[in-house]
């Protein structure tokens, strides 16, 4: 199973299951993601992209089918096991940066490492690692600033550094450039690409922007909860 990072088989998601207003948003979905891949997930609003991302991110459970993450079947995991698996394998980048306003940029980057400080000894000097990552995203001067003092693009860079601080194997990004101007979007995207090449981190990027999708290695298109298209792509 070493060749697969994610394997979904017959995955289904039904909201309000068993109620009259039940709604099936993902139908019988199969998907395999390889380590180190750089994949775009596209599709119209309401096609189930966010739901799929939440399930992949172990933030929500599936209603049917199987999900294997990094070789482990996580379908039946309870909340604690899911939290742990999420913490060990995954990183998140959200559309609205989602930094904690009470913490400095460096502290926000350190947070995922701080959570597990009591559980495992990985990470070495957490702060040094956070500063190194902030340097890598071009924010070495902003380490002690609070998110409120940073621009949108800078906040998203902090969020990227946070997603990478524990060297996850897969980063799930939900519209990471959704509310940024074109120029900033390009630089953020370039940053993700660089981490993918330099560190071998796999990315799954939900985006509306065909320009950005065109720069990925693979494009998966979701329509009405089904995979409508899944093609390799030659980045422009």
């Amino acid at each position, binding site marked *: 199973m070493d060749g697969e990072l994610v394997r979904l088989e017959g995955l289904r998601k039904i909201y309000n299951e068993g109620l009259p207003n039940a709604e099936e948003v993902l139908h019988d979905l199969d998907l395999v993601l390889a380590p180190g891949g750089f994949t775009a997930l596209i599709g119209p609003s309401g096609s189930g992209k966010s739901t799929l991302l939440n399930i992949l991110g172990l933030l*929500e459970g599936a209603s049917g089918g199987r999900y294997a993450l990094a070789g482990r079947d996580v379908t039946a995991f309870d909340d604690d096991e899911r*939290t742990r698996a*999420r913490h060990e394998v995954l990183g998140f980048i959200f559309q609205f940066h*989602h930094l*904690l306003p009470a913490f400095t940029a460096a502290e926000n980057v*350190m*947070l995922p490492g701080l959570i*597990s400080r009591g559980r495992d000894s990985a990470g070495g000097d957490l702060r040094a690692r956070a500063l190194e990552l902030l340097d890598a995203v071009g924010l070495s001067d902003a380490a002690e600033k609070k998110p409120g003092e940073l621009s949108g693009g800078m906040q998203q860079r902090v969020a990227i550094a946070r997603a990478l601080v524990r060297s996850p194997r897969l980063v799930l990004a939900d519209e990471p450039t959704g509310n940024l101007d074109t120029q900033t979007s390009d630089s953020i995207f370039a940053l993700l690409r660089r981490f993918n090449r330099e560190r071998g981190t796999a990315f799954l990027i939900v985006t509306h922007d065909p320009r950005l999708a065109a720069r990925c290695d693979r494009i998966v298109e979701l329509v009405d909860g089904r995979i409508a298209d899944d093609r390799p792509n030659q980045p422009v």
Partner: protein
Amino acid sequence: MTAGFELTVALRFLREGRMQTLLIIGGAAIGVAVIFFITAVLTGVQGDLIRRVTGAQPHVVIKPPEEVAWPLAAGSADVPRLASVQARPQRLTTIDGWPALARATETIEGVTAVAPVASGSALGLKGDASRSVVLIGTDLERYLRVVRLDDKLKAGLLQLDPGDALVGIELAKDLGAGVGDRFRVQSAQGSAEVFRIRALLDLGSRELNRRYVYTDLRAAQSLLGIPGRITNLDVAVADIMQADRVASRLRAQSGQLIETWIQTNSQVFAAINNQNIMTLLIRVFITIVVALGISSVLVVSVVQKRREIGILRAVGATRRQMLGVFLLQGVMVGVAGALTGSALGLMLVSLFSRILRNAEGQALFSLTYDFRLIGFVVAGAAVLGLIAAVLPARNAARLDPAQAIRG
């Protein structure tokens, strides 16, 4: 950020919601200060009242049993039924073998001191003046451990050599005598003796000041015609409010009549008890209000921080860790409130101890820095904060991270 994850986040959340945090700590502090203050005032006022009421009384008195008339059993045919039973007049009765009883009494749990007393009524005579007095003969050194006379001393020396007497100030005035003067005491049995006044005492009530004459035990015994014997044993107990409990232990041990200050002042005791119940109620309600305050602020905080809780969960914080974050906030708010409240309470006590005075113009309560009390209050507040935080912390732990992040 080297402390634990839960503590770090809890502190940041509290600091971030500065206004809420300050308000709830202020609320908790006022609650604690009020509890602190009424406890101090109550302790002071009750102490003063008890001192005043018990004054020259011992906490517990051991007396010989009362003499009763034993009517013949009624009902048999040849014995006429008694129409009425007349109570026997009470002679001056004595306790036999008192040294042994005194030693046994001293070993009872809760008893701190025992003193033998030979007491009876007599006449105090000087010149044309004649006053009825209560003659109390005792071993002064032991007696002082039972009843504090040192703070009642108005003039002279607390000392009882043979031929010495300590008298109430009103009696001295009535007899026209002062320290060093002599007066005669004549008992109902007819014998008389001359005593020299060594000291004047203010026993706290006019009645006592008018009648009490303390002499050496032997002199009283011979005046009352009971050489070698005593009329009662006066007992001091460690906790005055527990006098009844000690009394029942004494009853189980001896066949004597046991009387406590609580029986002789039942109304005062009932008033003190009611006061205690009322203040307990006030304290309980203040505690509940403070707990509800902490709870509601944290409930609101969980709602406000939904998204942040969601992010923390997404980046790997467990439910248990989120629970810990909010429980810790409750504990910290409680402890901070207790510390501020204790300081505030001490200030209130020191301020009011200058204003509130008793009849003699002394401060009603003294400012006692009981650090154990503060420690107890802080520990209690920590537990209270923890309990108050349970509901909001569970809300935080149960938040669905996917939903929390979305909206």
